[in-house]
């Protein structure tokens, strides 16, 4: 079973405006992914766009893998144009996985970050206290599939269209005051994850973040996707590949350089 395979589109539809759900069927047997892992996808066979793009798997079944994605630039536009039956080239599953929580846990999703956390919610169902932030109602994707998997959910939006008008780290911080013993799993934009990591550090809660950086190879070969991580050998931090050593890191080890951007 190779981690590089051709796959066919079996389903592909809009979720909310600008977001689509893509379901692939590998043409040859493929490895099952673990929650938090990702795939490199490419829709086109020409040289523009050139590189594959990384996407967390959203869900996986016997012979299908699904991806929930936001249309962003030319790679995702090419993806969005795929019809049922179209072929695409895939590498994966790649990267490490979320260490599975043993009991209740806090999940913090920012926008499309829900795509990565969804597989964790499904793997450990009914135990997540989900904090779910987005820019607006449109970006709170597929609540009907997510809510059955979690214990409680707290939503925030930047525009106040749903839930509290705040960054998602604000209710997380309040909640941690009494629940710092629960592990936290966060996926979203870099500034959002940094904010969550900060409130966890303050509260003394264990926090895992699934990072997002620009990738070329996805397998640890190009060293393009690195992030600075503190290790015992390198207390000042050393570069680790997000694609291979991550994307999931213990937030306390991450050095958030340029994370404000």
């Amino acid at each position: 079973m190779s981690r590089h395979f051709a796959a066919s589109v079996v389903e592909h539809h809009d979720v909310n405006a600008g977001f689509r759900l893509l379901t692939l069927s590998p043409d040859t047997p493929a490895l099952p992914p673990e929650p938090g892992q990702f795939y490199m996808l490419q829709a086109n066979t020409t040289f523009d766009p050139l590189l594959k793009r990384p996407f967390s798997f959203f869900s996986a079944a016997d012979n299908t893998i699904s991806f929930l994605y936001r249309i962003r630039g030319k790679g995702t536009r090419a993806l969005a144009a795929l019809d049922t039956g179209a072929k695409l080239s895939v590498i994966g599953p790649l990267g490490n996985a979320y260490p599975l929580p043993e009991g209740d846990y806090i999940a913090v999703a920012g926008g499309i970050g829900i795509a990565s956390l969804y597989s964790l919610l499904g793997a450990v169902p009914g135990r997540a206290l989900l904090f779910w932030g987005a820019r607006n109602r449109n970006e709170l994707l597929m609540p009907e599939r997510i809510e059955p998997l979690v214990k409680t959910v707290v939503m925030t939006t930047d525009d106040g269209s749903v839930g509290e008008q705040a960054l998602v780290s604000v209710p997380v911080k309040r909640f941690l005051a009494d629940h710092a013993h629960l592990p936290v799993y966060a996926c979203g934009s870099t500034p959002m994850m940094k904010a969550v990591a900060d409130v966890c550090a303050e509260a003394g809660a264990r926090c895992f973040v699934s990072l997002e950086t620009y990738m070329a190879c996805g397998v640890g070969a190009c060293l393009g996707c690195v992030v600075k991580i503190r290790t015992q050998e390198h207390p000042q931090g050393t570069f680790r590949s997000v694609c291979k050593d991550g994307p999931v890191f213990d937030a306390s080890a991450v050095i958030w350089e340029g994370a404000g951007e």
Partner: protein
Amino acid sequence: MSKHSLTVNIAGLELKNPVMTASGTFGYGEEYADFLDLNRLGAVVVKGLSRQPKEGNPVPRIVETPAGMLNAIGLQNIGVKRFIAEKMPFLRGFDTRVICNFFGDSVGEYVEVAGMLSATDGVHALEMNVSCPNKQAGWCVFGTDPKVLGEVVSSVRKVCTVPLIVKLSPNVTSISQMARVAEDAGADAVSLINTITGMAVDIKTRRPVLANRIGGLSGPAIKPVAVRMVWEVFNAVKIPIIGMGGIFTAEDALEFLIAGARGVAVGTANFVNPSATVDIIDGLHRFLDAENINDINDLIGSLHRS
């Protein structure tokens, strides 16, 4: 598929086929061992090594450009000692050639690293990357000043006990002049091209996209420049040439071979298609079959001159 031969000889080193990996795009080999049978490759060329481990540049380090990409990895590597201890045992397990790409920021460091690597069991050849800043001469780069290039190559040549490949920078007025300098200084082969210096600007933030500001352009975008330079160098030197720059398919590889490259290296293509190298080897077989050519050497440098 078995009638004909893909074997090539580069400076005394026999390769089962001309297809190798380009340094920095294939890690230390193990990163892709899952995706293809390394035994099929003509050679594995590893990420550039230096005396001390190197952290490399801050991020962002890469950005896609039309039919290409810019990288400013900054030569991050684990250093020659850890490489020998941790990566060579794995690489020795394969029936392929291992070529170590290396660099230094002074002539002394080049010499030291070359000495260590060429004394290592299982290292079949060295590839000197001269496209890195020269600390001794300030901003200048080893690979763009003919005098400096000649010096560093002849110093390394004295300590290097395996074939020495000099990897040329394309950022020069005359690549054939640089190739001749390398040849005169004792290089056993030249490889080209390294990346072309480029830049991308984020128009919103008005900053360079790469933290390092400039980076090296690779991929299909640069292929025509690379083919031209291989052809120029083929007409200028007698030592063998390893060609690279945008090779994604067997057809691309054939352009380089016909233009005079005795070996070809696959770089950026690995990222897009992890089995690019073996697909290219299969494609070379098919081409020789279809064209009724028995020996790939009959193709090398066969570009008609009229």
